[in-house]
């Protein structure tokens, strides 16, 4: 079973040289720490930056330079700054090669719910609806089951949707799964030490699982 860093590490392997990548808040942010050496990647922050660098050294924080999670960050040589309209313009026109974001629920037809829980204070969707509606390549980083042990990979989302039929890959603490164009999750890799049966029991949506699905290699 993977911890958050493990999920991030596995997702980082999906990043190809030359990619422009948008990382959501939470586990996706951790992905930046595991991008392999020699892979050139440009991180987009949807508040208006291409080429997001690491956090600043203490004392060098700049209130004018934050990411979409409102964290102080830095630029890198080759960075560019732009306004919010251009930022979402490049998202809509699919200039971003890969989008990684969290989810509360994903369904077997690629719907995603990650912004609203009825009865709870709604904070807003931020840029998530734009990202999932536009991106050509989206990976969801999420927990396979909730704290009550219930699956979050469902036949149909129970929560209000963020986007429909848009997710193609999910990485959880248990597995890597593709979502098939015709519907259904396909087990691609098991987390270290996790059995196919365990993944079956944790997946409420339709699952296509080869009994010989390989264990993921993280290093």
């Amino acid at each position: 079973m993977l911890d958050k860093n493990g999920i991030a590490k596995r997702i980082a392997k999906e990043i190809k040289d030359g990619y422009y990548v948008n990382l959501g808040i939470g586990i996706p942010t951790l992905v930046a720490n595991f991008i392999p050496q020699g892979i050139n990647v440009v991180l987009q922050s949807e508040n208006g930056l291409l080429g997001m660098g690491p956090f600043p050294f203490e004392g060098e924080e700049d209130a004018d330079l934050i990411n979409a999670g409102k964290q102080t960050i830095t630029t890198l040589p080759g960075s560019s700054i732009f306004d919010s309209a251009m930022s979402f313009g490049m998202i809509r026109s699919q200039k971003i090669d890969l989008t990684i974001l969290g989810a509360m629920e994903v369904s077997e037809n690629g719907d995603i719910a990650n912004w609203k829980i009825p009865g709870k204070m709604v904070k807003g969707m931020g840029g998530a609806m734009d990202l999932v509606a536009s991106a050509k390549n989206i990976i969801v980083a999420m927990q396979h089951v909730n704290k009550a042990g219930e699956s979050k990979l469902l036949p149909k989302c129970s929560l209000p949707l963020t986007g429909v039929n848009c997710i193609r890959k999910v990485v959880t603490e248990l597995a890597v799964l593709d979502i098939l164009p015709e519907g259904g999750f396909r087990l691609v890799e098991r987390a270290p030490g996790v059995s196919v049966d365990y993944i079956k029991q944790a997946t409420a949506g339709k699952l296509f699982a080869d009994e010989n699905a390989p264990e993921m290699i993280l290093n």
Partner: protein
Amino acid sequence: MINKVVAGADEAISDIKNGSTLMLGGFGLCGIPENCIAALVRKGVKELTCISNNAGVDDFGIGLMLQQHQVKKMISSYVGENAEFERQLLSGELEVELIPQGTLATRCMAAGYGMPAIFTPAGVGTEVAEGKETRNFNGKDYLMEYAFDADFALVKAWKGDTAGNLIFRSTSRNFNPVMAMAGKITIAEVEELVEPGVLDPDHIHTPGVYVHRIFQGANYEKRIEQRTVRPRN
């Protein structure tokens, strides 16, 4: 060049009335029009509709206006960091319209570019699409979203000149340029106000034609919401 300088925030916002619709630039607390917000609190104008990506925090940004019950409605994409906001929302004092961040930005841009409506895929198939026209182009569904119609846009820039030209610094640019284009009256506060000719015409982010009033702000706090750092080795 046309001189657009006013003495300060109080003069700049003097004709904002109860019930006005305002756009306020900024992302989180980054690049917000601090001086104009302070002046709005002093003026005590009420029943405002505020178009702003966020709603500030309890004791800063638009949060200061919420404390004074000046806001009737927020149109935002994310309003997460604000307990008083939550209280007013749950008690029904405050109306909130949540819209996708890109839709928010593009509806501002549409106003600035004289486009009455735009098409975006954001929100298709979700509750955001309810009551909206959906249209298919090249096999993909889009929502038609209307340009905003705001009485005033309040933006904050780094440098500006007396002709109204603006330059923003780093990610404090965010929503400021698109809102500057979109207001019927656009008020810009800047950290440094210079004479025409000081700013390179190629570096201007917002041409002066969009800015109706400009002043040099004072006492910028520029509060950081999430101070994240890395250790020096």
